[in-house]
């Protein structure tokens, strides 16, 4: 489904702040793969997701998604294929627009936006049903401005927007990191539910090792812009936090005292 081939990206080239964020990275995702991504700060997790989303062009390599080469496509041109939820709850929605307007915008991802009315009547009913699934009561506040929602509500809405028109790939960039534990769990469960319901191919970055183990069918660990550990299926299910820490120490050569060091 997704193929990253020899992807490299260096920021601030030629300056004292030069940082190789992705170093000849290779990754292959099968359709329906739900991959959790872990790694320390600066490991290249977010950079990898941004490279796939097309926030900027990569330095070299090739990105193929759903059979087509998207390496040279701009961010908005790839949006048809990709749904995204960001770490910052402010980032995924337009605060001054209504809930229903935000959804309508997401529904037209990758389509031509013409001079038809922005929200049709049939859509209103569709969104009402979909918002109900979130279980946050948002279906009764569809004309509320998104800026008035809490961070958790916004993330849930962004998740719904990202998955509204089943994307070929769902990118979750630490999307529960800014939420309190109870809300984070709710949003995470919701993500699980939607991903398995729609059989979405998903990449999810998390700083919580427990979550990384509990969710998805595959886990990758990154360090210095490369994937240093890749495990799936039964083997992944048996993983423990200690396994991951040992693995990190073994491969990176750095002994970690606790998971905070690896994951914060």
């Amino acid at each position, binding site marked *: 489904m997704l193929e990253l081939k020899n992807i490299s990206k260096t920021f601030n080239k030629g300056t004292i702040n030069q940082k190789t964020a992705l170093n000849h990275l290779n990754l292959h995702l099968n359709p329906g793969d739900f991959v959790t991504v872990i790694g320390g700060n600066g490991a290249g997790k977010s950079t990898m997701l941004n490279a796939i989303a097309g926030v900027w062009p990569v330095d070299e390599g090739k990105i193929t998604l759903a059979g087509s080469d998207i390496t040279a496509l701009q961010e*908005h041109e790839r949006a048809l294929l990709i749904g995204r939820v960001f770490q910052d709850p*402010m980032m995924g929605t337009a605060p001054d627009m209504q809930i229903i307007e935000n959804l309508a*915008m997401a529904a037209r*991802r990758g389509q031509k*936006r*013409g*001079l038809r009315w922005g929200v049709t009547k049939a859509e209103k009913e569709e969104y009402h049903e979909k918002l109900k699934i979130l279980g946050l009561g948002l279906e009764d506040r569809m004309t509320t401005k998104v800026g008035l929602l809490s961070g958790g509500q916004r993330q849930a809405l962004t998740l719904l927007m990202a998955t509204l028109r089943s994307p070929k790939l769902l990118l979750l960039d630490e999307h529960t990191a800014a939420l309190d534990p109870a809300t984070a769990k709710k949003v995470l469960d919701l993500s699980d539910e939607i991903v398995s319901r729609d059989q979405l191919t998903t990449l999810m970055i998390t700083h919580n090792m427990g979550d990384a183990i509990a969710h998805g069918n595959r886990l990758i660990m990154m360090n210095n812009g490369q994937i240093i550990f890749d495990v799936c299926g039964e083997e992944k299910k048996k993983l423990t936090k200690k396994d991951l820490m040992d693995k990190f120490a073994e491969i990176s050569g750095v002994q970690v005292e606790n998971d905070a060091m690896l994951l914060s």
Partner: protein
Amino acid sequence: MASYFASLRVGALLNACPGGIAQGLIWGVMALGVYLTFRMLDFADLSVDGSFATGGAVSIMLILAGWNPWATLLASFAAGVLAGIVTGLLHTKLGIPAILAGILTQISLYSINLNIMGKANQAINVNSVTLDITSNMRVIGRTIAICAVICAVIVAVVYWYLGTEHGSALRATGNNPNMSRAQGINTNAMKVIGLAISNGLVAMSGGMLSQFQGFADVNMGRGAIVVGLAAVIIGEVLCEAIIGKRQNFVWRLSFVVLGGIVYYLVYVFVLWLKFPANDMKLLTAVVVAIFLAVPYLRAQSKNSFLRLKKMNREAEKNA
């Protein structure tokens, strides 16, 4: 002092009001354009000072060439669209900051406007051309009615546009560009289109004003952005006060036009008080600065370190 008050005549003020209303409506069209960029796209576009005069120059020169005055307004609109596209491309394709892109267009339009007119000022013979928008006091009522209809039509069209898929994408671009791109919106293209429509309206307003006053001047757009902002902000304050929570886009757009009228009535009133005409721009700038500052200062007074310091000091005193 007494002689000053004795010199003010209420009749003169009443006579000046209709002209003020007509001009307010004309500037209301301009303010709608400013509203699109300033509020919807979050883009402070300074090219309007240039494109306003361009609209005036195009209209007057085409009338002199024998065009129908109404048709010249469409040409003014088109000229403004081009100016807006230039600003948009300077910003999105060449990476020039928004304010600077606007200033570059504005300053280049100064030369272009001189070229269009051949000199700094061009007048039409109002007796040889039949104008529907004119400051002629005998038909000022009709001019006001025509300008009001134009404003109503533009408010309706802009309202409709902002409700469409395309207009929603424009609003989202100004509101959250990151989210917009993630939802497949070409934010650069939206900015260029928004600037084009905005400058089109501004130039059309310039064309209307030049017909109203019977001439175009290369300096007629100087400070136009401030007048436009004044109308937008006065409109917003009034809308908040009068409509309150029931605001929707129709109200907001209508109040932008109303803001233009209120601005010009205040202008007429201040002139009537014999305030020096040369100082009017200074006064306008002060008014806009105050209106822009009020929301900020109000928030500050509710939540500031200074207030906290005072509060704690008093609590200590009482303890």
